[in-house]
């Protein structure tokens, strides 16, 4: 060890370590580099003192500044809430039309509406609001209870057959179960369904008499759906002449509808969500593209 050994080829001193005749050249680092290394050690100790560092049995060393990333996160969360409250207040006081025509409010309402839609509406209507059998597609332009901003807002607030006093169809009559209640016979139902299919250009059964179906329709259905079958918004009776079918357009699905009726339910949101959120949802749904 004590012997100095100079490598012949490079003329560099070796460290003295030898393994099977191999030696390691000694190319020393500058001493200040070593001092920087010591400084980093001191720094790390200061860091332990200043910040949370060591896990203990039931807690951890808190550090001088008692820093907590969680607390910082919560603070940022509260700050975000406070920032939202400002625009939220403006939404509270603005009418739906004002929101729609003010870009700053619109942007905020759209953002908030999208988030709340995902939390509250998507389970039934789908994240893209495309709905499914029994749950209407909110993107299209077919609205059983009206598609203006105010109509959508009212539906959102009180729901449909929700039990709320101001709900759409608060008497919960829904569509009459013509078959189950014994109003129409099975063959009459087939006949009226065949007629209804003809209204929107769906395939009809040529073996059935359309005129007889029309008579049945005028006698039984026109009170709600209108003599021309275009429906009535006030009653939530859908337009039967268009291409949108909430419960499906197959003959079987339509026979099922006439036989047992339909009583689709949407909950009231006014008690569950604050007014600003409901307004935002109305604006968001309206702007999905189908709003009137």
């Amino acid at each position: 060890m004590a012997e100095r050994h100079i490598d012949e080829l490079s003329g560099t001193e070796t460290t003295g370590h030898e393994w099977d005749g191999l030696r390691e050249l000694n190319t020393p680092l500058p001493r200040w580099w070593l001092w920087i290394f010591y400084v980093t050690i001191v720094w790390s100790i200061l860091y332990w003192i200043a910040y949370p560092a060591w896990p203990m049995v039931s807690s951890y060393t808190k550090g001088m500044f008692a820093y907590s990333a969680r607390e910082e996160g919560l603070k940022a969360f509260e700050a975000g809430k406070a920032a939202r409250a400002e625009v939220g207040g403006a939404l509270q006081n603005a009418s739906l039309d004002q929101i729609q025509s003010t870009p700053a409010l619109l942007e905020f309402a759209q953002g908030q509406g999208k988030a709340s839609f995902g939390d509250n509406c998507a389970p039934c209507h789908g994240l893209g609001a495309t709905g499914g059998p029994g749950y209407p597609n909110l993107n299209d332009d077919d609205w059983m209870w009206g598609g203006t901003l105010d109509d959508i807002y009212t539906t959102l607030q009180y729901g449909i057959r929700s039990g709320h006093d101001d709900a759409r169809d608060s008497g919960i009559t829904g569509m009459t179960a013509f078959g189950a209640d014994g109003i129409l016979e099975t063959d009459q139902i087939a006949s009226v369904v065949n007629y209804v299919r003809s209204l929107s250009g769906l395939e009809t059964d040529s073996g059935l008499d359309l005129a007889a179906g029309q008579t049945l329709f005028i006698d039984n259905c026109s009170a709600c759906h209108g003599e021309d079958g275009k429906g009535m918004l006030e009653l939530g009776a859908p337009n039967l002449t268009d291409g949108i079918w909430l419960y499906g357009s197959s003959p079987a699905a339509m026979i099922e509808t006439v036989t047992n009726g339909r009583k689709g339910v949407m909950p009231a949101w006014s008690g569950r969500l604050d007014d600003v959120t409901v307004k935002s949802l109305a604006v968001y749904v309206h702007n999905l593209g189908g709003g009137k």
Partner: protein
Amino acid sequence: MRVDTGDSGSGGGSSQEKSLWAKANNIYPQSISGTFRNIKWALMVVTLGVYYFLPFVRWDRGPNAPDQAVLIDFPSRRFYFFFIEIWPQEVYYLTGLLIIAAMTLFLMNAVAGRIWCGYLCWQTVWTDLFYAVENWVEGSRRDRLMKEKQGWTFRRVREKAVKHFIWLLIAWWTGGAWVLYFSDAPTLVKDLATFQAPFVAYLWIGILTFTTYIFAGFGREQVCIYMCPWPRIQASLTDEWALNIEYRTDRGEPRGSLKKMKELAAKGEPSGDCIDCGQCIAVCPTGTDIRNGVQLSCIQCGLCIDACDAVMKKIGKPTGLIAYDTDININRRRQGLHDIYKLVRPRTLIYVAIILAVSGFMVFTFSTRSMSGMNVLHDRNPLYVQLSEGGVRNGFTVRMLNKHTEPGEFVLSVEGIDGLKIEAIGVEGTENGNPVVSVDRDTTREVRVLVFSPKGLQLGQSTPITFRLVSKADGETTTVNDYFKAP
């Protein structure tokens, strides 16, 4: 006088004890005048002049844009460089610039070694400036060595204090100039002076003052030898044809005192021109002995050439014992052959070709880049909406860019299927049924766009369509291809 260059790294303690740590030896470079010194002074004035004063250069961009020629505007995410304005999504121009910078560095290296290290690197330039201050305050190399030996006297303390004060002043100004690139310089200078500037400005001035003071005042050649990766990288990029500052061994060896050389010459024995005066080492800012050949610690600043030439003139020998040369030529002269230089080599050609290609591409893309633009994103959920009357609707999110310094109006239209109707939510104005979107100056606007197919038209699942955005101000057109989805 010779100085231990310290590169053997034997460290402290007895000579028998080996150390794994090298002591950094103080270096007292002697000031010198000559061609290369003048080149270095000139380059120092140019580089530092650009660095310190560029933020104050004004460039008129119209009423609504900053008038600072070079400005990195983080809050509004713009980079201004004279007539160029870069948006964040155009940061690939920076990539091109970096490629050009790297290739230029490689090319310099292939042509004449470490030009960057010796003349242009900030470590070199600032260290050079700090040495100049040291020489001015504490006296020449001889004085400084003498004062070192004498120990601490009042005069030495005073000189050291003055030197460090000037160093800190330069370092502070260096940090100060840095932050001026990120905000309007005259305003920031005023704010800094009145303590109104943001904390981050003072923080960065502090950081850069510290690093400049440490690196140029104390780090010096240690930065080049131990911290910088470039000496290692350049060594693997260079080749035997690259010019380097070399001690011409064919002419210099065997070296010895002038007297001894004269005796040898008188006897008809070989005698070199090198009189072993050590001037080349004395002037070297990294304490390197160039006579050991091209080496890592040599930054190739050319000062040893000036020193050696001065000596050669004094003893009546031709200059150029140390000069830009190649090992190939040194060996050829030994064999009595003439010098050859090869500037045109595959590597120099390739570097030049890459530089030309990248800068050509950048100039082309830059000159043809548009002042407006559009991004289109098709709704993913739902892909399409069937409407009650039998038509189909597709939703898109369209973001429009207006890089002009004035607000602009843009007509958005769609084509690809006859009878397509387009509607932009929240946009009132239309022209021939197409929405006219106003976008504020120097910003973007996102609108939701609905496209309707005519009712009764049978469409495939996916039909190509094209969005067209026409600027009403100058007719500039942007088109984006997308698809119209149907059941």
